[in-house]
């Protein structure tokens, strides 16, 4: 699906007027949205852990956040490439959307530091879950802070009100790219989770 999406995107890139870096739009934005989806999924699993006390949610939350952080790092990299193509610099502090993503990346990187400094057990599960919930709240708060800062350099045609900035067909290609990226993240999540569960079972059997 990703291949089809990017193939179609390459055909359309030349027709995207006003995008100096049209191609990266189909990569950067789906990656960013996928990162949010995975981090949100991790927070949901953390909430389920605190709500029900079922330990399986800990591994699911951790795995989702791990995948989310990988996609967050990719967002920073592709955002930097976009900045280079659009504004001829690799990093611009006035681009506060990317800065907000950097804040989230720092926050979730600390999640791993926290997790690995705690002894395995129910305490670690609960503390990690609470921290993940804070991340879910930090996402909209960072967005709000960015909006308050009132400087948008990124083009945000999908959420801009008024005259549509992109055609419906381009939106459809974007939708295919986003679906492909989400499917890739879901596959990575399933594989990593299966591996971690197997590893856990082996450790328990060995003990």
């Amino acid at each position, binding site marked *: 699906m990703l291949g089809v999406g990017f193939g179609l995107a390459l055909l359309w890139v030349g027709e995207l007027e006003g995008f100096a870096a049209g191609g990266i739009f189909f990569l950067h934005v789906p990656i960013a949205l996928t990162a949010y989806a995975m981090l949100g999924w991790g927070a949901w699993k953390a909430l389920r852990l*605190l709500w029900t006390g079922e330990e399986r949610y800990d591994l699911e939350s951790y795995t989702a956040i791990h995948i989310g952080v990988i996609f967050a790092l990719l967002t920073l990299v592709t955002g930097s490439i976009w900045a280079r193509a659009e504004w001829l610099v690799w990093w611009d502090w006035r681009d506060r959307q990317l800065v907000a993503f950097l*804040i*989230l990346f*720092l*926050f979730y*990187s*600390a999640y791993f*530091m*926290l997790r690995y*400094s*705690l002894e395995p*057990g*129910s*305490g670690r599960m*609960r*503390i990690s*879950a*609470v*921290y993940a*919930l*804070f991340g879910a*709240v*930090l996402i909209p*708060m*960072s967005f*709000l*802070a960015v909006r*308050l*800062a009132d400087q948008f350099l990124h083009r945000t045609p999908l959420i801009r009100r008024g005259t549509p900035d992109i055609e419906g067909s381009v939106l459809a290609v974007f939708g295919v790219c986003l679906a492909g990226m989400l499917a890739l993240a879901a596959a990575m999540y399933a594989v990593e989770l299966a591996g971690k569960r197997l590893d856990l079972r082996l450790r328990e059997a060995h003990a």
Partner: protein
Amino acid sequence: MTYLRDAAALARKDLLLELRGRETVPAMVLFVVAVFVAFRFALPQEQEAAAQGLLWVAIVLTALLGLIRAFVPEREQGVLDALVLAPCDRSAIWLGKALAVLAFLLVAEAAAVPLFGLFFTEVTAATVGAILLANVGLCAVGTLLAAMAVAGRAREVLLPLLFLPLSIPVVIGGVGATVSADPARYLGFLALYDAIFAILAWATFEYVVTE
């Protein structure tokens, strides 16, 4: 009422310990003054706007210094488990600790803000309002994170890593309220941050301290 009495008793205990030991507040005051002096030489001449931003960095770092010591007495005496087992709502522990840290921070700022006006530029009423609002959010979030960090290894290293990303929206709101001609929306943002994160910290503290 019992809930508030429990929280007040814990806060009073921390304040009494500080009055006797004087370990945290003098360190916070000296730290923030030292930061101002270092900033004065780090800044180019006549950079008032940059100095306004540095005030907020100094406040966040000073709050961090107070938070690092927030659970040290309990850890050294091994009484955190006893507190958790006490017949009171566990979130009252969070509230009492947050109130104590807030009191320490207010004392440090009472010395720091006039000094900032003396060293750099005048402090407006909007800035003072923003500082008071920011204090609530920093102490509410920071106290919960300090309880998390104290449970892990390398506590002193861990807390800054956990705390600084969460304090960045406070810095944005604070700097906005300080430099903007229309500080109301930034003050509103800080109040929103306080309300959301204080409720979240209050609701989740129990999960952090129970085994």
